[in-house]
């Protein structure tokens, strides 16, 4: 039995700011280390933000294997849509611990992610839903869902990077 989660909002904010920095700096291998081995990452479709990826067409519905592959691909030379890489800048706010359950922490945070590339400036707005696992002093991400408020991707084009 793992110990009950005890994490403060300040600690969670530090964790999420660190995560955002790793992503903005394209340190994706280090970013992957923030995840549990069975982690999932998803982005629901803009017209069904509350849906389930088992029966709904998502934008991203990665299991741990596909997430690792996504990172490997993005750090390789033939992900043409991100080679050269986009510049991104993430603003994370309104961080809230919603509840804890055993060693699990359920948290939400709002995001604004700017992506700049090839003279296009795209702004992704939405919220994250995290399921985190506390392991000793460390937090690990078990599920990370990026839920866009955008009504479609028409203004941003695509999601070729990690949102």
């Amino acid at each position: 039995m793992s110990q009950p989660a005890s994490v403060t909002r300040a600690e969670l904010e530090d964790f999420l700011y660190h995560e955002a920095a790793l992503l903005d700096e394209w340190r994706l291998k280090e970013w992957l280390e923030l995840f549990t081995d069975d982690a999932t990452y998803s982005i629901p479709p803009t017209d069904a933000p509350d849906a389930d990826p088992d029966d709904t067409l998502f934008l991203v519905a990665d299991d741990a294997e596909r997430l690792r592959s996504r990172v490997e691909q993005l750090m390789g030379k033939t992900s043409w849509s991100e080679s050269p890489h986009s510049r991104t800048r993430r603003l994370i706010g309104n961080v809230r611990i919603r509840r804890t359950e055993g060693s699990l922490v359920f948290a939400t945070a709002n995001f604004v992610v700017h992506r700049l590339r090839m003279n296009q400036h795209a702004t992704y707005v939405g919220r994250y839903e995290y399921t985190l696992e506390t392991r000793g002093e460390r937090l690990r991400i078990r599920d990370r869902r990026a839920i866009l408020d955008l009504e479609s991707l028409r203004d941003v084009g695509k999601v070729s990077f990690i949102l």
Partner: protein
Amino acid sequence: MTSGAVSSNVLDDPRGDVFRVQRHAFTSPEVFAAERERIFERCWIYLGHDSEVAEPGDFRMRELGARRLLFVRGKDRLVRAFYNSCTHRGAEVCRERAGNANSFQCFYHGWTFANDGRLIGVPGDEAYGPGFSRESLALPQVPRLEQYRGFWFVCFDRNAVPLVEYLAGAVEYLDLVADQGESGMEIVGGTQSYAIHANWKLLVENSYDGYHAQITHARYMKWLASSGAVSMPKGKLANVARDLGNGHAVVEYAAPWGRPIAHWVPSFGAAAEPEIAAIRARLESRLGPERAARIASSSRNLGIFPNLVINDIMAITVRTFHPLAPGRMNVEAWSLAPCGEAVEHRKHRLENFLTFLGPAGFATPDDIEALEACQRGYHANPEAWNDLSREVGFEKPTVTGEHQMRVFWRRWLAQLEPSHGKLAEVRRVAAR
């Protein structure tokens, strides 16, 4: 510039081995305006799938370029396509993307239309004279609306040929998709709605371009090989590009990826192998071994002129796109699947879809990048011509040739060929 039996935008040398398209075809505002008038206002344009308005009252708002249409099943179960504009002063009567409604009330003055279009409510109608006719103020429908095997199309040209005639040889390939469901096919929930900074015709070309796959999709191919998802179907394998008439074209080929119907690959998991075998067996008993083998083992990328793509590959995507400007299009993509598919199987299908397809998949973003790179390239050298000569004159053109694109461009040219003053202008401007 080359002359002879050529148009200003497309060089199609009947003797020779050259087929080229002038880049103004992708960048010119005049060509864009002519396309709107002579292609999008005259051809059959995909509206949606029957399953999206399954129940009486179900509706979807659809954007076909600048035109906003209401795709509705009335309480009489008939499907209709209305212009989403009140007959009183023109406001949109529906401002929801989708839902179920008995009626649509314009919030401006409160005129209310039944879901079959009848005007059923006019606040303060005592103020109108005897000539005021509710019948003539019903919500107008688009001139033509027809469906084939659940695929609904509209046409703004009242005199267009019937849809089935227009679809020509494409019906064979729509059948190969529609036949996959024992009790019909349905659009899965969730729309991939995105945009590309490129001319719409680039996406037509790209959607059945087998030549680019190994290079543009190197990372997907690498993932496929490393994930255990790879296994070539057995038997006599197709590799063909076909002209289906009226600008429609298809490529049919064998690919190493798994197919939900029905080609098992290791990444589906051992548990799924008997399940896929059972699906295959049912397909065989229903359609016969030959047709079942064709459906299960081959992939097909189908382009229906001008802007509908149905790719039956590692999953089935229905994709349509509308130009907003010469260098910009909106894209809508859906997953099509058999009704009543087992939950676990549906999950595999959607996972398989996402590995390649969509604006965050392992492949589509790189296609988008390629298309946008082309569009930027055209502005770098707008007077140049694109070359589409691969396999010109081949008796049996293949998926890695450009026969399918030439089929599209010849139809495009036939639609735009100057036959009156306005297009002659376009031709002059475009050739400048």
